[in-house]
């Protein structure tokens, strides 16, 4: 056998013996949270690296992350030279999905990078994540795994009627008020739950103060799948002591009963609220976009 063939076989065996020490299991959620910085949350999955020490084994590894879009094109990868060195313990080593995506070391390309800078998110769609365990020099792949995942994000409903600063005729409003809003986007077969919440603006209160501090006068779920709720208030709105101003919103909740998240989690899936006023004997004014 010629020496270079022997050398090649030796190299292959050496690589096999090294790679056989480490296995990667990327247990990533099919639908992880759209904000990549949230991936430390266990609901997004885990990266499991198993290490079986052998004679020539090196417990130190670096991770390399590569992100592909739906077409298989690379849209981002981590910087190997600045990647953190992990010293694996014998057996199972657990990492978070945040360790797998390496956000602090990930460089996306083009539009994806611009969107990440602007929003901290990827656009909705199908992606593939490949995680590789490398030697500390970063030139030998010791283990690799690829997982697909889907990013789903939502646009909360906009309130349409009563529009912000609308005036409603008290003679009609004390018996019935129709609330309407746009649908959660994208819609899905798992219809969301819309809760209509109406707050009285009490004397000397600002609308936002009432919204943040009062208990809602109405907190009811609309018929699932519809974007309309007919409220029968049965309130004495014609009376002079009655509150004439109200602020309302829609809280959108997923099938598990959790609020759909906006930028600020404290908003609890509530759309931008709108104020309406009860008037007597005057034409109802329909003002601008709220």
């Amino acid at each position, binding site marked *: 056998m010629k020496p270079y063939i022997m050398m090649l076989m030796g190299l292959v065996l050496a690589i096999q013996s090294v790679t056989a020490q480490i296995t990667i299991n990327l247990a990533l959620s099919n639908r992880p949270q759209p904000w990549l910085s*949230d991936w430390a*949350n266990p609901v997004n999955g885990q990266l499991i690296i198993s290490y079986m020490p052998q004679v020539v084994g090196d417990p130190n590894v670096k991770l390399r992350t590569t992100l592909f879009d739906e077409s298989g094109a690379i849209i981002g990868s981590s910087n190997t030279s600045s990647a953190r060195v992990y010293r694996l313990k014998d057996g199972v080593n657990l990492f978070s999905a945040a360790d797998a995506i390496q956000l*602090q070391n990930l*460089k996306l390309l083009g539009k994806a990078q611009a*969107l*990440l*800078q*602007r*929003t*901290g*998110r990827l*656009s*909705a769609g199908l992606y593939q994540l490949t995680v590789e365990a490398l030697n500390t020099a970063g030139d030998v792949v010791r283990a690799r795994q690829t997982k697909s995942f889907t990013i789903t*994000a939502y*646009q909360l409903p*906009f309130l*349409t*009627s009563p529009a912000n600063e609308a005036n409603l005729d008290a*003679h*009609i409003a004390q*018996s*019935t008020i129709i609330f*309407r809003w746009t*649908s959660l*986007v*994208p819609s899905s077969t798992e219809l969301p739950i819309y809760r209509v919440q109406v*707050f009285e603006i009490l*004397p*000397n209160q*600002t609308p*936002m*103060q009432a919204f*943040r*501090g*009062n*208990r809602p*006068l109405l907190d009811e779920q609309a018929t699932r799948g*519809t974007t*309309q709720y*007919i409220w*029968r208030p*049965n309130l*004495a709105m014609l*009376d*002079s*002591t*009655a509150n004439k101003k109200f602020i309302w919103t829609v809280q959108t909740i997923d099938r598990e009963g959790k609020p759909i*998240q906006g*930028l600020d989690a*404290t*908003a*609890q899936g509530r*759309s*931008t609220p709108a104020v309406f006023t009860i008037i007597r*004997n005057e*034409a109802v*004014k*329909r*003002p601008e*976009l709220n």
Partner: protein
Amino acid sequence: MKYILRILVFSILLTPFKGSAQDKKKLIKFGGDMGVWYEGYGLDKDPNSSLPNFYPARKPWNLLRYSFNPNLTVGKWNIPFNFNFTAMQNNFTTSPTGKKQSIWQYLTNPVNNFGISPKIGTTELLLGTQNLQYSDLSTGDLGIFGYGVNLAPGKFRIKLFNGVSQRPVDYLTAVQFPPNGITGAYQRNQWMAQLGMEKEEKYFAGFNFVKSSDHRNSVNTAPLPPIEPQENMVVSFLAKVNTSDGWKYHIELGQSFFTRNLNTALSTTIVPDFKPFVKAHTSSNKDNAVMLGVAKKGSDWEIGAKFNYYGAGYYTAGYPFMQNDKSEYLVNTRFNAFKKKMNIVASLGQRFGNLSKIAGPSVTKQIIANVNVFTQFSDHFTLTTSFNNYGFNASSISGYKSVSNELTVNPSYTWTTPKINHLLSGTYTFSKYDETILLPPLTTTHNNTKTALILYVPTFLEKKISPDFSLMWFNNKATPIELTLLSATAGMNWKPKEKINIKGQLQYSLSTIKPYTANKNLLATTGFDWELYKKLTWQFSFTANIYHYGTELPGSSLSPPITGFPNYFETTVRTGLQYRF
């Protein structure tokens, strides 16, 4: 508590200015008002406890609010107070504490206002709760408890404020506070500044700087994800110009630097630090927003247009409920015609959402158009007509669209006999609302609503009684559901003396969902407005609401089952005393 100390120190530091002002002029004036407002709520149900709970209480049993809004003038000092508060805690969209509030939680509860704004010349101190809105893209309209100052030397405008816009609340488990626990919240500190130049009624140009940061150590038990400590910095440039020939211009350009979770690692990989204000984390992002507006006002008309853009990552902690990732424009006009016998108000706007395509492959479109025409045909007859159109389209494979058209006609006729002025008014509204879910199988829901109202108001010229009568019919069809509502209302005001006004109202309603029998409702209200003394007024009102369900909710469907149909009796007492200084 450090804010309270700072407020005190801040006040003391400015005491010398106060003293010198008093030396010059010792005139003391006291104006304003104060009052107390109470609402009591009662609910009796038959059956009283059953499953499902067919009618939950919709108000707190007792609600007491105090207001103290004097305006004190001492020499050249003008000191308005804004104290509006309650001892009760009914927080819903912000986290309740689940236990007795601490003093700090009480002061920073968004339901309470404790604010003083002493002003002398061009210097205004801001102490306690303040609702500061420097601009739409920066501060929002949340109440903030803290301290600050507004200075206006010459054309310069300098505003500074430091306070708390969200009180700290500990997370409590469902075991600690059944049934659902307490969500909790971090204390949110807010620093604000505005530096600009202004000439009253002519122009303003300046920069706004707003930083808000959640204090991680403000709670003993931190809220659970997704509520994380946040940080936000907004810088905006605002310019407003009014010209002598009636033009108005408005422009604001804003950039936000938002950190979604302060517990994430410091990193400049995604966005660089925003020196010297904010250090970047892996959860930081920055984005922009724009507001533009132009308007022109004539003697008998006005027209305006505005355009707003909010980037998908634009965020201001001053208004956390703002929805972003959208652009919108609106054109509106108002003018008179036919020798001012006709007044027309119209607007047309469009909103584009999901601009960043984060929530799907296509941009959503929303249109809103309305026109309102008021015509005075004669001294006796007027007609108001309005048409509104709303449309929303999320055209993708997982999309949705809806269209709403609404037409309202409202004629009014008045005539006078020797002893009575009569007003007869009718309103008819037809609303057509169609929703289509673009998921196979395509389903479109047609939702048609008709509303008719007849109102008759006789005003007796020689008597102290003014009654009014109305009949309303409402019908909503959204196959397979059809709801019909019929209500008759009679109201009356009686002024037996100059200072007292007694009022009453009775309304009977039938509410029917086909094929069930009608629910019956009687709403009765009585009360008075009484000027006890020259500056003291007392308002009182009592409302009873009796509701009997029809076959829509048979007693046999409840657990435990009852014979017949459930009903409830709801009462509300409202009373308020107000004293004007």
